[in-house]
């Protein structure tokens, strides 16, 4: 019964894009759709797939993120507290380790990231190492999520971190090699896959509701934003570092050669 309701809701979600695609195809371009039966089967699969995904989302992905947040921040799991003492942010260290592990592991093996980094290596003519690029994206993502959990524990306003990151991104954009900029901004989007987004969102909201003094509305969001921003920073940082190392190499040779 639940599945029928979801199926109907999903149908409403898909109608706009289907109407747009077929509308423009038949009314504006006025050409027949190639392989129409196959396309219709495709839309049917999208409908079924999205419905199954949303069912699993409610049943598994949200609960899993929430469960981890609750368990890792419960009093019985945290280190013993001395009498009358306040919780220090470092007491929640397992949360930071978990956030880092989720961020790094889901990003490092992401197929689209692997493809993009190999391409970037070719374009750069060897200055950019594809594997190092992947590491930078994964580190950026992992750091962003970890920072997000730390912010929730501390109760700091999200704006400060995001605006700080923006300023860094702007400065880096003006100073980085031009060819890396598109890639850097792209890598922010790569990290937020359909599976990781719900888990991260549930983790943040779960933390904000189980840590004393935090409210989900004020503190629970922002993990996804930070997870998208920091890969931009680390990728441009890596490109700047690679360029700087590259520049240093020939200089050394020219300063050395007169002595020889």
């Amino acid at each position: 019964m639940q599945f029928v309701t979801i199926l109907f809701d999903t149908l409403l979600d898909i109608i706009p894009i289907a109407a747009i695609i077929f509308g423009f195809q038949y009314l504006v371009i006025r050409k027949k759709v190639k392989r129409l039966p196959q396309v219709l089967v495709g839309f049917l699969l999208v409908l079924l797939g999205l419905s199954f995904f949303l069912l699993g989302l409610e049943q598994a992905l949200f609960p899993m993120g929430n469960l981890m947040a609750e368990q890792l921040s419960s009093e019985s799991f945290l280190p013993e507290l001395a009498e009358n003492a306040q919780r220090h942010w470092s007491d929640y260290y397992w949360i930071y380790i978990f956030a880092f592990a989720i961020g790094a592991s889901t990003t490092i093996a992401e197929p689209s990231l692997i493809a993009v980094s190999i391409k970037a290596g070719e374009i750069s003519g060897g200055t950019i190492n594809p594997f190092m690029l992947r590491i930078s994206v994964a580190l950026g993502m992992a750091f962003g999520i970890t920072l997000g959990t730390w912010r929730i524990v501390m109760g700091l306003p999200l704006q400060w971190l995001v605006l700080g990151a923006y300023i860094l991104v702007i400065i880096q954009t003006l100073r980085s090699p031009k060819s890396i900029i598109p890639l850097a901004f792209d890598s922010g989007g790569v990290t937020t896959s359909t599976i990781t987004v719900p888990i991260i969102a549930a983790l943040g909201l779960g933390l904000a509701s189980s840590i004393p003094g935090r409210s989900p509305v004020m503190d629970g969001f922002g993990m996804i934003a930070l997870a998208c921003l920091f890969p931009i920073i680390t990728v441009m940082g890596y490109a700047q570092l690679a360029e700087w190392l590259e520049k240093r190499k020939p200089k050394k040779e020219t300063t050395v050669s007169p002595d020889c």
Partner: protein
Amino acid sequence: MDFAFSLIRQMRDSLRDLAPVVLVIGFFQLVVIQQPLPTSVDLVDLITGLVFVVIGLTLFIQGLQLGLFPVGEGLAEAFARKGSISWLLLFSFALGFGSTVAEPALIAVAAKASEVVAEGGLIANTPEMQDDFAFKLRMVVAASVGTAVMLGVIRILKGWPLHFMIIGGYVIVLLLTLVAPSEIVGIAYDSGGVTTSTITVPLVTALGVGLATAIKGRNPMLDGFGLIAFASVMPIIFVLAYGLLGI
């Protein structure tokens, strides 16, 4: 036969996406937490839910590749080459809007946001009001992505430098953050990250690359991407403005 084969390959990709999450959470449960699951969580439910996620994602992406992507990409190329400017811009908006409405990650985050906003007492805590909030939020984000894609196309046509526009977007976000109600800030920032996902990226990239190849002297890699970069800043601006005008 071909179809079955590509379905299996797609299933393997979905499993590979899910594997790190399951491994990390499993490791933490067994090695770090070492406590039985709370009674509110049923392990069988979790596992069947994960199976649904894998089946769902497999069918969804397979379906996109069979239907939406080829037709959408064909249209994007056709409009990039021939269509009049006004049709091109209308199509760009519609493409950004429609693909965002069907974006699973956005459906997920909007649902969570409506729950939280209702529990926080900002809207009436009834299922109808929650659905209404989630729906409006998704429409606002979809309209913002549509606008972003349209602006991105204008940028490609005019050859405006990309980084000035992104920096301009960031400055607007900054200013709006100062005046917007603080309850909406987190939701707004997060909605920027969820739009660049499964459906929107391939379709919008196809439009950008098609345009950049059709216009002389443009770099497909630089221009194709610019659309996506806009699509992740514009939702923040729109949702902040939406919060400012009243939920």
